[in-house]
């Protein structure tokens, strides 16, 4: 190909691109023109990905479409409180709500959500050119109904990872001391025994050296369900207890005698393991939810811990908030024999794949305008900036972005782990009675945490109370 021809081709491609770009940009202004004066209201949990929507994506959308967007970011409890009240009472205050993966089954069972796929088929004029459902990661499947349609646009997805302090684990003096004490090389634990040993070592090491350092984090709040979540979603599965120990195929049994595993030997071993870790964790653990666990780790007070991935980015990179910038490594959580094989075969899982989507309540008064916004946050083009600002990936196009790859290196390979090992983790089981069982179990769980009842007795009570509650709710016949 001669030079002139090549230049001609380049000019043609550039010309085509230039003429196409305004057409794409125009979609938002054209589509938005129909909704002049509309203000969309959304409610979500105050998390880094949600704050990015509020601070970056909503203003961008507003600028392009003229549709005003007000996003309310609040606490996890309040977010549910507000969203459910609004949809239950059909007040139509919210046009977008955050749907955490674990609540979507309850919302679908109550027909609270608009079928996004169907709505865009019904009115193709609303379909944004840059929005393609097939680009979402498999995490989007959690938000699909029985017909395979999408009922929420995934906006955050992360795994609860084993975070450890690289600087401590790689310190030759500490490695030597660990070897002398345990006879083992210091490395991220693969088994529960190793994890316990490392935790005990660092707690002792902190005490002996007058450091504010403990061997592990523990999300062990004695009055907030975060503690129960850590146990059922991140610890019990690593002992082979899946789906909270509830067997949906056996009439939602929870007790061992009826076919469940909530009070199985494995569940009891898992709880005792975790309670021991709680005892050697920093003292604030008894009042720690997921947020405080991240703060504890960021303050350099724990050598290792299970931390929600949504916090990994700021812990690893934000020097204003974190004392352990560039000092963290990520690994898969320690597991019992057979659990990894279960996870690889799809029979089980090794930890929690958390996240959520933005959904559109059927009670919304601005359904079409809200559909535009949902597509806006689901486009490929907005994903990389979002992933760098908050460690979440819901779109396959994001992984290969240079900025994301750079961030991945700072996060010790977290994104690579999400991409390659994400399949080993799972979201909450598909129960429409999620919050109801949680509340029943949590109050007993708090008593276990405070020592009012023993772990074995407590798990027996939890299993029985769960079956009773499911009978009351009409799920268990």
């Amino acid at each position, binding site marked *: 190909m001669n030079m002139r021809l090549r230049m001609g081709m380049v000019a043609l491609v550039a010309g085509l691109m230039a003429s196409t770009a305004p057409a794409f940009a125009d979609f938002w202004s054209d589509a938005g023109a129909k909704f002049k004066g509309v203000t969309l209201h959304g409610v979500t949990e105050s998390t880094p990905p949600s704050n990015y929507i509020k601070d970056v994506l909503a203003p961008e959308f507003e600028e392009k479409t003229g549709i005003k967007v007000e996003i309310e970011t609040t606490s996890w409890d309040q977010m549910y409180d507000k969203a459910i009240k609004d949809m239950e009472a059909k007040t139509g205050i919210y046009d977008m709500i955050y749907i955490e993966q674990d609540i979507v089954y309850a919302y679908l069972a109550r027909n609270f959500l608009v079928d996004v796929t169907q709505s865009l088929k019904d009115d193709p004029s609303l379909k944004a050119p840059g929005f393609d459902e097939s680009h979402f990661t498999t995490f989007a499947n959690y938000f699909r109904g029985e017909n395979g349609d999408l009922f929420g646009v995934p906006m955050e997805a992360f795994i609860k990872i084993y975070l450890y302090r690289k600087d401590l684990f790689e310190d030759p003096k500490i490695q030597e001391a660990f070897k002398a004490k345990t006879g083992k090389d210091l490395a991220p634990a693969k088994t529960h025994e190793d994890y316990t040993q490392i935790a005990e070592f660092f707690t002792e090491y902190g005490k002996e050296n007058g450091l504010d350092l403990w061997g592990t984090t523990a999300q062990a709040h004695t*009055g907030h369900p975060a503690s129960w979540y850590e146990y059922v979603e991140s610890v019990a599965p690593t002992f082979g207890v899946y789906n909270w120990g509830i067997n949906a195929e056996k009439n939602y049994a929870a007790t061992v005698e009826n076919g469940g595993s909530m009070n199985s030997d494995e569940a009891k071993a898992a709880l005792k393991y975790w309670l021991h870790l709680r005892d050697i964790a920093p*003292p604030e653990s008894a009042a720690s939810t997921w947020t405080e666990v991240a703060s504890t780790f960021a303050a350099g007070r724990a050598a290792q811990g299970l931390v929600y991935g949504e916090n990994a980015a700021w812990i690893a990179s934000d020097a204003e908030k974190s004392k352990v910038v560039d000092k963290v490594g990520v690994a898969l959580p320690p597991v019992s024999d057979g659990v990894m094989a279960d996870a690889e075969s799809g029979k089980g899982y090794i930890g929690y794949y958390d996240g959520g989507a933005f959904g559109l309540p059927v009670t919304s008064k601005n359904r079409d305008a809200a559909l535009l916004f949902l597509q806006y946050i689901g486009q490929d083009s907005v994903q990389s900036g979002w992933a760098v600002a908050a460690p979440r990936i819901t779109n396959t196009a994001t992984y290969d972005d240079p900025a994301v790859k750079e961030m991945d290196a700072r996060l010790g390979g977290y994104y690579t782990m999400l991409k390659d090992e994400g399949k080993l983790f799972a979201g909450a089981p598909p129960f429409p009675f999620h919050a*109801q069982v949680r509340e029943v179990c949590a109050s007993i769980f708090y008593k276990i945490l405070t020592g009012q009842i023993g772990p074995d007795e407590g798990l027996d009570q939890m299993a029985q109370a769960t079956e009773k509650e499911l009978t009351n709710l009409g799920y268990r016949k």
Partner: protein
Amino acid sequence: MGSNRTGWLLLTPTLVILGVFGILPFIYVLWVAFHQWNAFGANPYMIYNGADNFRRLVFDTEFLESIWFTFQFGFFAVVSEIVLGYFLAQFLMRDFPGKAVFRTLHTLPLIVAPIVVGSVWRLMMTPSIGIIPYFLDAWFGYQLNIGSNAGAAFVVTVIMDIWHWTPLVTLTLLAAIVALPKDPFEQAQIDGANRWQIFWHITLPMIRPAILATVFIRLMDALRTVDEIWMLTGGGPGSATRYIGLHIWKVVFPKTDYGYGSAISVIVLYLTLVLCWLLYVGLVAPRNGRRT
């Protein structure tokens, strides 16, 4: 007749507001209390179940525990606030340098929203970052952790309530004391009564209505406290500070058990009324020469 009609006409807006925002919701809650209704149950609609919800709460240890903790909380908080409030009111009757500044600072907690009070106390109480555990450890070697020590958590919730609401009691009693006539006190002094006798036989009987009004208001507030406790302890550790308002919130919202939650609300209203009536019968009626 005409003035009667005018009176009713003037009362109408108030009665309408009371009816719409007070009576109707109460009737609705009463109606719901006789139904099984869980928004996320297999059947999410209301099913009439008679008095089952009320029967259920008699055997519900969580509810009974919650009631017991709430009464303890109410008792310790209100008694402490009345005693402390009275002394502060007497203190503010005197002149001293910086009185205006003290009075302003002392009243500041009143204007802080309960949720903020809870947040601030949580920050002050969290081990590792909280100022109070830090100094208790540094000065007395006492390691305060309200996340694991039920007794300490209870005491801290009471102290927080005292800190927040004592200024209200002080201001109410101060107003009552300022309004007292001087003659009986002068007469008593001439008759040779000592300070205690003056307090017991003159001051206390004369400010009794103000004290009782304050007790009723504070007691009703204490029995329905939610936001501060929710923020500080979340009801923990265990159920040590799961006072009834928080318990109802947990049953109605996270658990979405509307029927049972409504039944608890009705019973709590009933218990509050009974408690106030007992206080009235025990403390007010005998003084008025009535026994009912």
